[in-house]
């Protein structure tokens, strides 16, 4: 076990993938000598060379579009989009080609591309640097969507994403980049990342979330326990496919469910979770499923973000709401 930040864990995971498979190459803006604006690729160009760690021109559609061509040639590109708000120039290539090409080629040509995107708010950044675009991607057949919640998860799931023959949108919760965890960087990786994780089992309320909200949910569960409310916490980890069976099992026990994400609540991942929990757990529910997330506004200037982002206090409000009914 090694103590690492999420940035260090991602760096170690990328390094391991590149050592294991010469077809893996990294592409993105400022990922070479600089090591990326968050230093996730620190030192990799020095060790693997410019042919495998490619500092690209400043053009997101170009990065993803050329990654597609490299994938057609048999490579496994790992693309870094510098910030969430910069993925949209590449949205056409992602939705029309990366997501669909295996299907439109009748299964002949896979698209083993990983698109890493630092996402979410909470770091006091300027406009276009704090967004949560996960629902667009999870709504698109052909893509897989993963989001790690801590360093140990990041180390393993980035390697699993790279090993997948399907394209993976890999959403990195940038406000957790500097959180430390004990990372098992010795044991061989087994199994897949396509399941949710039950982090805590309680008897009263099931808290469901992912990425940056996992830590906030755990803090909320601690706060709730001081009020005598016993919460489960489930990290979805994979947003496509969604693995909701553990959620259903838990809600059938607790009868109450609160879904949390930074993205706007309306038509977000929480809407899908709530609809399916309602269908699968209908006769066990003590209260309607509550959702905690962003208002239906663009991500606000950062002096507002402590109000915009789901906090322990707002999650506790929702917990009180489902407990009161």
């Amino acid at each position, binding site marked *: 076990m090694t103590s690492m930040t999420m940035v260090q864990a991602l760096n170690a995971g990328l390094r391991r993938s590149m050592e294991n498979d010469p077809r893996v190459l990294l592409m993105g803006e400022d990922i070479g000598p600089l090591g990326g604006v968050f230093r996730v690729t620190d030192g990799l160009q020095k060790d693997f060379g410019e042919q495998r760690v490619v500092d690209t021109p400043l053009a997101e559609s170009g990065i993803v579009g050329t990654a597609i061509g490299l994938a057609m*040639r048999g*490579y496994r590109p790992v693309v870094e989009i510098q910030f969430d708000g910069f993925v949209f120039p590449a949205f056409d290539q992602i939705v029309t080609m990366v997501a669909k090409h295996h299907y439109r080629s009748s299964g002949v040509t896979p698209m083993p591309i990983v698109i890493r995107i630092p996402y979410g708010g909470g770091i006091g950044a300027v406009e276009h640097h704090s967004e949560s675009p996960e629902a667009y991607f999870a709504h698109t*057949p052909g893509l897989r969507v993963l989001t790690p919640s801590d360093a140990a998860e990041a180390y393993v799931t980035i390697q699993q994403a790279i090993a997948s023959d399907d394209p993976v949108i890999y959403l990195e919760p940038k406000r957790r980049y500097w959180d430390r965890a004990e990372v098992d960087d010795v044991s061989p990786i087994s199994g897949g990342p396509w399941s949710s994780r039950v982090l805590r089992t309680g008897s009263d309320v099931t808290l469901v979330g992912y990425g940056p909200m996992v830590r906030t949910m755990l803090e909320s569960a601690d706060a709730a326990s001081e009020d005598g409310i016993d919460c489960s916490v489930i990290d979805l980890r994979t947003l496509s496919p969604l693995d909701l069976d553990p959620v259903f099992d838990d809600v059938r026990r607790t009868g109450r469910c609160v879904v949390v994400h930074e993205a706007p609540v309306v038509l977000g991942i929480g809407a899908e979770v709530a609809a399916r929990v309602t269908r699968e757990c209908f006769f066990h529910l003590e209260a309607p499923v509550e959702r905690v997330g962003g208002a239906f506004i663009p991500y606000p200037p950062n002096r507002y973000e402590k109000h915009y982002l789901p906090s322990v206090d707002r999650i506790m409000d929702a917990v009180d709401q489902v407990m009161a009914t």
Partner: protein
Amino acid sequence: MTEGVVQLLTPEGEFRPHPDYPLEPDTDLLRALYRDIVLTRRNDVESTALQRTGELGLWCPVLGQEGVQVGAGHAMRPDDYGFTTYREVGLFQVRGVDPVELLQLYRGNSHASWDVDRVGLGLFTIVIGSHALHSVGYAMGIQRDGAAQAVLSCFGDGATSTGDVHEAMVFAATFAAPVVFLVQNNQWAISVPVSRQAHAPLSQRAAGYGIPSLRIDGNDVFAGLAVTRAALDYAREGAGPTFIEAMTYRRGAHTTSDDPTRYRAETEVEQWAALDPLDRLVRYMESVGALDEDFVAVVQAEADAMGERIRDAIRGMPDPEPMGMFDDVYAEPHPQVEADRRAFADYLQAGSA
């Protein structure tokens, strides 16, 4: 043709060898070019007829552009790779795409259907210009493999307005990717003339990227062959990309859903018909005795047989099995697709019970 346009075969059928783009049109080559243009044209006629009789949802006519397409197809080596638009019927013919495979797409049975590895052509993209980037990425893969191969990237004048084509130029120049951009300037992007895309010759744009460029007569199959071959050689040698603007004309509609009489004059179409790529090849072949009646009859019979085969295959083509729409969404099993597949199978089962 205007000044500065490379032409090796005049509309009158006169061969003018070019010092920079050598070509020795022996009888075998001439006959191969003739055959490919005739078969391309026949495919176009048959497919249009199948659309008109309701067997296909759509067809994109190629009439007028076969010269540069067939020439460029012959310029490619077997292990070169191409990325095209939907209108590259001449290139499909040269590279061996079975017309019946292609037409499955226009019938609505499949999104795409040919064996990309066998013919060395990627599936075309319908979102204009996006494949220019795939071409460059593929070429970057060739570089990393250290292979002596090159990529031909075909798109039209309309595509040159897209951001993706611009980004493709930037990436290609930056990495000296072994790719040849072949722009067929057919004068029209559906109803919009090229003057709406550019105020200067498209070929001039390449200079801004540091990419060598030139204009060729796109109705001249010799120029299409000799110039594209030189550019592919240049790319294979590691010298980087080239930008070729082929001046040609789409004499038919944009697609079978289009009505070109609403936006252009018939006299313009007639002017370009006088520059037809097949007519000039025939004139040259007759002048050198390379086109005898027997050969013409053989190609005609081959075209007739192809037409009959296309008609029979398309008219008799059954709709795909409904469950097939769930196949190949992912390379590895995805629980949501599998759940939807099971639900739909149950629905079908219940309906048939």
